């Protein structure tokens, strides 16, 4: 989907002491767009403008209303934006449009595609049996959605049951927002947005307060929803792995300015600068001179200058120009400080871990892979 959703021209938003957004011009297209940036970079300001909650002090924003849903836009604001006098269940009931829901293959969305298997060892908090008088037994995950969606008379109650179960909120369905934890509020806000099934979803750091072990499972529901519908998503995050995993396009903000706008894969593999590339996680930057100095023996023809940790390997050698000063294992990558002995220059590299610890003083060579 490459149709533009928003066209922003020279948009500025003034803050107390500096610009929250400064002369932003860009076109946000369909599919999934991640907005990344450090704290205070302007992510929330941008999403507030896109949602129409704030108006720009300068410039224009045009929203090209999608036609596939009767509800053009809905959002998940940073604070959840919940309605204090509604229970958890009522939040979903208030936004479900049965006419729209009939077109959505909820059974496929609720059917897990393996993400849960990856997190199966984690036991979610137990859901108590429904109280007598609740009127509904606790639904099993996918089978009820399947049944509900295949029935000619679509029952939004079943959909709500399933959404609540998917986001581990079924046992809290009669609770009010004021009594929910931050994680539960985040989950409810996301579930409400899915239940509304708008043409475009805006999410400001969704699931930010959810524990990292369960977060991928909820993201899985969102992803399957996006894959099986023509709904678009723009979301902000400062978790690089979420942006890489979930988005096709990315907007990098820094101090209210757009640093990069394009494909996520492009920013990951071929960032225009080290600073921009760093938004999607650690990377090494070797221009031609640095490459000649630090990787003289590298026979691979991999183009640079950006190298992600998984593209670099450090191998111990008997004798060479590079000496290890320190080594730090970080899980999926390792961080090693090296010294170029002839010039006494030093630099820190992030690279794929080889399985053995590099010792200070050891001679090594850098290899691309």
């Amino acid at each position: 989907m490459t149709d533009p959703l928003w066209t922003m021209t020279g948009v500025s938003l003034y803050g107390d002491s500096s610009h929250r957004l400064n002369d932003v011009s860009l076109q946000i297209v369909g599919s999934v767009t991640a907005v990344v940036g450090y704290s205070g970079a302007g992510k929330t300001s941008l999403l507030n403008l896109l949602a129409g909650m704030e108006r720009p002090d300068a410039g224009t924003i045009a929203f090209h209303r999608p036609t596939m849903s009767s509800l053009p836009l809905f959002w998940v604001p940073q604070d959840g934006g919940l309605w204090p006098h509604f229970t958890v269940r009522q939040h979903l009931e208030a936004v479900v449009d049965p006419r729209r829901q009939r077109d959505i293959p909820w059974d496929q969305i609720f059917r897990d595609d393996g993400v849960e298997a990856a997190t199966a060892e984690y036991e979610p908090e137990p859901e108590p049996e429904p109280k007598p008088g609740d009127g509904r037994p606790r639904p099993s995950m996918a089978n009820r959605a399947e049944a509900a969606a295949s029935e000619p008379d679509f029952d939004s109650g079943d959909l709500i049951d399933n959404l609540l179960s998917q986001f581990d909120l079924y046992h809290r369905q009669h609770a009010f927002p004021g009594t929910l934890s931050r994680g539960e509020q985040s989950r409810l806000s996301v579930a409400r947005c899915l239940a509304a099934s708008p043409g475009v979803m805006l999410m400001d750091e969704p699931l930010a307060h959810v524990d990292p072990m369960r977060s991928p499972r909820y993201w899985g529901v969102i992803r399957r929803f996006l894959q099986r519908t023509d709904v678009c998503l723009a979301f902000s995050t400062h978790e690089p792995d979420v942006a890489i995993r979930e988005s096709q396009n990315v907007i990098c903000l820094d101090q209210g300015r757009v640093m990069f706008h394009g494909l996520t894969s492009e920013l990951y593999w071929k960032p225009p600068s080290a600073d921009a590339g760093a938004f999607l996680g650690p990377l090494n930057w070797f221009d031609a001179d640095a490459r000649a100095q630090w990787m003289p023996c590298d026979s691979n023809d991999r183009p640079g200058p950006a190298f992600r940790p998984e593209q670099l390997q450090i191998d111990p050698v008997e004798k060479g120009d590079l000496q290890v000063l320190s080594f730090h294992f970080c899980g999926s990558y390792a961080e090693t400080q090296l010294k170029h002995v002839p010039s006494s220059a030093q630099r820190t590299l992030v690279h794929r871990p080889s399985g053995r610890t590099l010792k200070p003083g050891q001679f090594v060579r850098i290899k691309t892979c």
Partner: protein
Amino acid sequence: MLQLVLTWTISRALIVSSLAVPISLMVCRMAGTRSTRIRTLRRHPVLLAALVPLFMPDLLTGFTYRLTSARLIHSVVATELLYGGLLLCRVTALQLAVLLILPSSAISRQSIHSWKLLRTSGRPNWYRTWLRMLVLGPYRSVLVAWIGGMLLCFQEFETAALLQIDRHPVVWAVWLFDAHAAGEPLSVSLSFAARSLLFQLALLLPAILLLRVGGRRQVSLPPGAAADAGLFAGRPALDSASTGRGMVWAVRWLILCSLVVTFVWPVASNLTALAGGFRTLVAQGGLVARIRQIGFSLLDCMLVAGAALAIGRWLWRRSDSFLTVAVLLPGLCGSLVLSLILLAAFQLPVLNRVYDSWLPMLLGQTLWLLPRAFLLVAVLSVLTPQTSIHGAILLRATGSRLLVATARQLVFRLRNVRWLLAVGILTHWCFWDVTIVSVLRPVRFEPIVTRLYNEMHFGRTETLVALTCLSLLIPLTVFVVTGMIWKVVAVPGNVRHD
């Protein structure tokens, strides 16, 4: 003489406000977790009961206890205790409101503990910084609440004026008002008022500094984050102390007594005389004239409340502290000082043309209401973040009629009702204020409240009771009907969630 009266009033304010602090802190703590206090207000009857005195007209309280005061005429102590007790109920309510809504200090308990850890490092000025942190941190909200209580006690006029049969309770505002009404030249009244103004400024300045230096404003934090940041006044100093069961019961009893004294008894004692009063009022043939008088007063107050709320919203959005202080300061100095200053200003040649018009009164009422309006705007902004309302607004764009109706009802509930309530509360406060209208009203306009105030001095008749009830009921009815009409207009059709 003024010196003595001022000293007496200040001493009373000091005692009452200091007594109210532990009570309001206890009630605040009993109300539950920090972040959910306001949101779950309706589930805390103790909290609601404690806030009731804030909404009871001073005039009605004074009128109810005037006979009691007359019976206590020979005992100065008893009269002062009666007045002090009534003030205590009101001040506790105010302090509680302040503790509930005051944004937390930027200096958290964790910040103070971090500083405590550095104690052994022999840092110069450690104690000074530590004290500064305490004052601007956890004690900040308590200090501001205490100052607010002092100001309320110091500025109170209506109840004292009606309780004062002989010379007690001694209150500077009544003394000055009587002197002014007795024909004291305005310049003399102003010179008297200047001293009380100085005292009030001396109280206000530290409060403003405490709010400005130690505060931070967060409007739309998620509730959980608000809890972490201690948005709702943080944890007051006594909050972490373990509270005995006996103490909790004592506070509950105190709140119950306060409810009976300030609400139940004034309502019950006047209800008995209501039927007879209405009959007399109808028989005398003055009912229509009185209703018209109430209507004009209501119209004036609604206009003023709307203006004050609009200015309050504007100030809140601008978030310019100097401008806010400058605009709110006149109102914070109390109605008597404010009205005397405005009276003097409108007697200047340049403004003399509009002296006998509605302008001085409207201006005075608006300025007086502004701090309260600002407070209400702050409360409303915390109660319903803009994001919640915007979610409902986005939902309105759907093609489904059912969802549109739901969205409209949500917007009505989250936004319109609360603003209507805010205008209602401000109108109520404005309607029952005697001082400003007495001093600044145009000659041809007599608000119902000045008539009530004057007649209440001459005894308790059934007609007066009926007129007072009418003055309470008509505005209430108008607001309920307005709300219903607004709802019908804003939320047409059937909606699922009620």
